[in-house]
């Protein structure tokens, strides 16, 4: 082994022993990481003064011990009693209240690392962990590195970087890097001057006077050892990374800082979390571990636990059931489209031609359905007969009117007087150009579709028909596929529902849509909740809008609600909106009014960040503490 290798081995051994010593020292120390809520120190008039009390002991002539110390006079007992002044103590709370807004919770806490846990040769990893019921979530970790640890970590990266630099990149010029280019060039000049190999163009038919091909020449002058070495280096990248970088620099750490040995460290940690459904309490603790420069990890345990009680606007959800309201019109219409056919130029209803038998049966069925329904009363019958464009408009108009009349007569006949002739209206739509336009637009088989559609600009319907007739072969297609569909009669009954006194009815069915909106609200999906609940314009709707971050719309709804009925919750929510807007006086007034209506809002006010500052600032609820 080389002399320098021995020296390196000895140095590494020394470093390892030092690290092991540090591990043991820290593991055996009583120091622990502490976490606490952000301190809000109140000056209540008591200050602990630093005072050096005096006391001493001696022995009298008989050898008896005598103790002297500072004493004060106790008025109650009338005696002098020993007095000892204590240094200041800090009382910290383990739990805190936080509020959830817009589906998010903001937590903040302080991590205090005592100086005993910081070593030059080690890295301290602190992972805050949130627990919510049975769910655990690791927050971004904090890394506190010693100077020597950081130096070794960076040195490892530098070594790996140098290794990567020694790899020839794939886009390097092949001939320059991997071949004896000078020899290759001269050889080609001497023996194969016509070769274009160096320009990247190979020609296997080219050979030297001794029968050597281009590829063979290239193979001879390629530095195979260099190609092989480079491939080997590429293949060993991962291995070399693991060799050089024992502790990778973390990208996911909130902080990776070097702290000198002998200094304590405090970090103010702030985290925003999405609020989970029904989350009322979350707990937080940290686990921490030590890592040396060789990647050896020693877990040191966990810190104390902090707890957060979450106050959410979802407490204001009105969970009472809502029933479906249905608006039912007293008047209704029932329609049927009949494809009954007539002989050309004829308007008489003949059941024996084409498939009219079936069509007439269909008309009978439809008419019976209405005329035999005892809950409705037929009020009016409208028959709209339409035809196809072939032939003159005047003729078509007359024909469609007559055909409509034939159907009306038939329906009157089968109604047995349930509908009077005066209530039958016949409309003629001589040529149904509108339907033709739609069907042509949707037909992809027509060759001259654009041309046909351009004819529709002609307002003279007869001229329009003639122009379309000229477009062949599409006109034939129209004649056989489109025109038959235009020949129809629409039968529409207007009916009145009997025994119906009002148009809006309240059913006993639970409004599932509304309840789904409430579920969204409970699960803090405010966007979907507000989409559904907005139209109901109730307290839940206002709550969804307020939580979604739309206070203006929420305020509108709440104003509507309090005009209908005085409700403490609505006043309280309005107070929150006003506070957010900065209208403090109005907010205070509304809050006071809500507490008058419902005293529980006095206590609720302490949980909401919109109201609590107002209570503090205006000294509201002082009667509670008097």
């Amino acid at each position, binding site marked *: 082994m080389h002399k320098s290798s021995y020296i390196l081995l000895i140095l590494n051994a020394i470093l390892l022993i030092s690290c092991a010593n540090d591990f043991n020292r820290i593991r055996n120390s009583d120091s622990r990481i502490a976490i606490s809520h952000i301190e809000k120190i109140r000056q209540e008039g008591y200050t602990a003064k630093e005072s050096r009390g005096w006391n001493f002991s001696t022995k009298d002539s008989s050898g008896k011990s005598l103790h002297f110390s500072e004493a004060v006079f106790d008025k109650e007992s009338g005696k002098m009693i020993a007095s000892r002044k204590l240094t200041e103590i800090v009382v910290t709370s383990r739990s805190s209240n936080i509020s959830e807004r817009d589906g998010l919770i903001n937590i903040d806490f302080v991590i205090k690392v005592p100086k005993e846990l910081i070593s030059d040769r080690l890295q301290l990893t602190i992972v805050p962990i949130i627990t919510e019921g049975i769910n655990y979530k690791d927050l971004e970790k904090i890394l506190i590195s010693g100077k020597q640890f950081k130096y070794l970590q960076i040195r490892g990266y530098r070594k790996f970087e140098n290794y990567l630099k020694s790899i020839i990149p794939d886009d390097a010029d092949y001939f320059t890097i991997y071949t004896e280019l*000078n*020899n290759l060039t*001269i*050889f080609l*000049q*001497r*023996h194969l001057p016509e070769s274009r190999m160096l320009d990247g163009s190979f020609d296997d038919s080219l050979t030297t*006077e*001794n*029968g*050597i091909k281009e590829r063979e020449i290239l193979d*001879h002058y390629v530095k195979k050892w260099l190609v092989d070495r480079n491939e080997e280096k590429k293949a060993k990248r991962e291995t070399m990374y693991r060799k050089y970088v024992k502790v990778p620099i973390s990208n996911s750490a909130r902080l990776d800082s070097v702290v000198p040995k002998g200094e304590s460290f405090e970090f103010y940690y702030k985290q925003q979390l999405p609020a989970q459904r029904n989350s009322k309490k979350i707990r937080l603790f940290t686990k921490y571990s030590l890592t040396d420069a060789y990647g050896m990890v020693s877990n040191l345990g966990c810190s104390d636990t902090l707890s957060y009680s979450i106050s959410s606007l979802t407490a204001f959800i009105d969970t009472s059931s809502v029933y479906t309201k249905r608006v039912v019109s007293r008047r209704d219409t029932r329609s049927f489209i009949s494809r009954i056919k007539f002989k050309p130029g004829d308007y008489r209803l003949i059941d024996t031609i084409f498939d009219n038998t079936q069509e007439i049966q269909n008309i009978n069925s439809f008419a019976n359905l209405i005329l035999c329904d005892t809950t409705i009363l037929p009020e009016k019958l409208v028959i709209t007969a339409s035809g196809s464009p072939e032939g003159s408009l005047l003729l078509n108009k007359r024909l469609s009117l007559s055909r409509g009349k034939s159907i009306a007569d038939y329906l009157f006949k089968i109604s047995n007087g349930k509908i009077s002739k005066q209530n039958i209206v016949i409309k003629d739509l001589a040529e149904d150009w509108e339907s033709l336009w739609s069907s042509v637009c949707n037909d992809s088989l027509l060759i001259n579709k654009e041309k046909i559609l351009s004819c529709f600009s002609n307002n003279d319907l007869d001229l329009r028909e003639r122009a379309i007739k000229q477009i062949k072969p599409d006109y034939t297609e129209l004649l056989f596929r489109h025109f038959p569909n235009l020949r129809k009669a629409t039968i529409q009954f207007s009916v009145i529902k009997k025994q119906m006194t009002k148009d809006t009815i309240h059913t006993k069915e639970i409004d599932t849509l509304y309840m789904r909106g409430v579920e969204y609200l409970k699960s803090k999906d405010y966007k979907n909740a507000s989409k559904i609940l907005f139209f109901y314009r109730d307290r839940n709707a206002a709550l969804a809008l307020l939580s979604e971050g739309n206070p203006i719309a929420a305020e509108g709804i709440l104003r509507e609600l309090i005009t209908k009925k005085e409700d403490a919750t609505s006043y309280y929510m309005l107070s929150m909106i006003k506070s957010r807007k900065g209208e403090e006086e109005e907010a205070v007034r509304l809050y006071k009014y809500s507490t008058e209506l419902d005293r529980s809002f006095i206590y609720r006010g302490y949980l909401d960040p919109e109201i609590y500052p107002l209570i503090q600032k205006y000294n509201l609820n002082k009667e509670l503490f008097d």
Partner: protein
Amino acid sequence: MKIRLIILIVLIQTLLPFSKIKADSKLGVGLNLAGLAIGNVNLEGAIPLSRHLSLHLPLSWNPIRISDKVSFRHFAFQPGVRYWPWHVQSGYFVSINYLFIKYNTTWNKLRHQGSGNGISFSGGYSFMLSKRFNLDIETGIGALLTKYDSYESNRCGEYLGSYTKTFIAPLKFKISIIYIL
């Protein structure tokens, strides 16, 4: 002497048909710089015989009498055949050489005059400097059988005797510039 010349001509005549020398074969002419440094006038003909073989015909002549005590006067002819693993006039090679030398050398108090025949094995490397120039470095060892007369080194020095000796010695050292025709 005549017999040796005849042998050489016959050897060349015999090898040439085997070499399949083509019209565009790169014949070379070389100059040994190492020999020139000690006053040897020299010239070498290099004839490629195939992809891997070449024939080399170097001549060396030194007529200079440096002083009464030092001179390397000689005439030498050392034809040889080289084997090139890759290609003639490029890269490594090994060769086998015949040596004929006629000499009259003086060193200090003795002058030796005679002739010798030898055979040597050598190896070297040919650097391609440009399309037309190569730099050959070659060294080799061999056996030399020589017959010579020894005299005192002063002018018309006394005859001391005739000797026949065989040497194993480095018979080849060349740093040559080759011009490729």
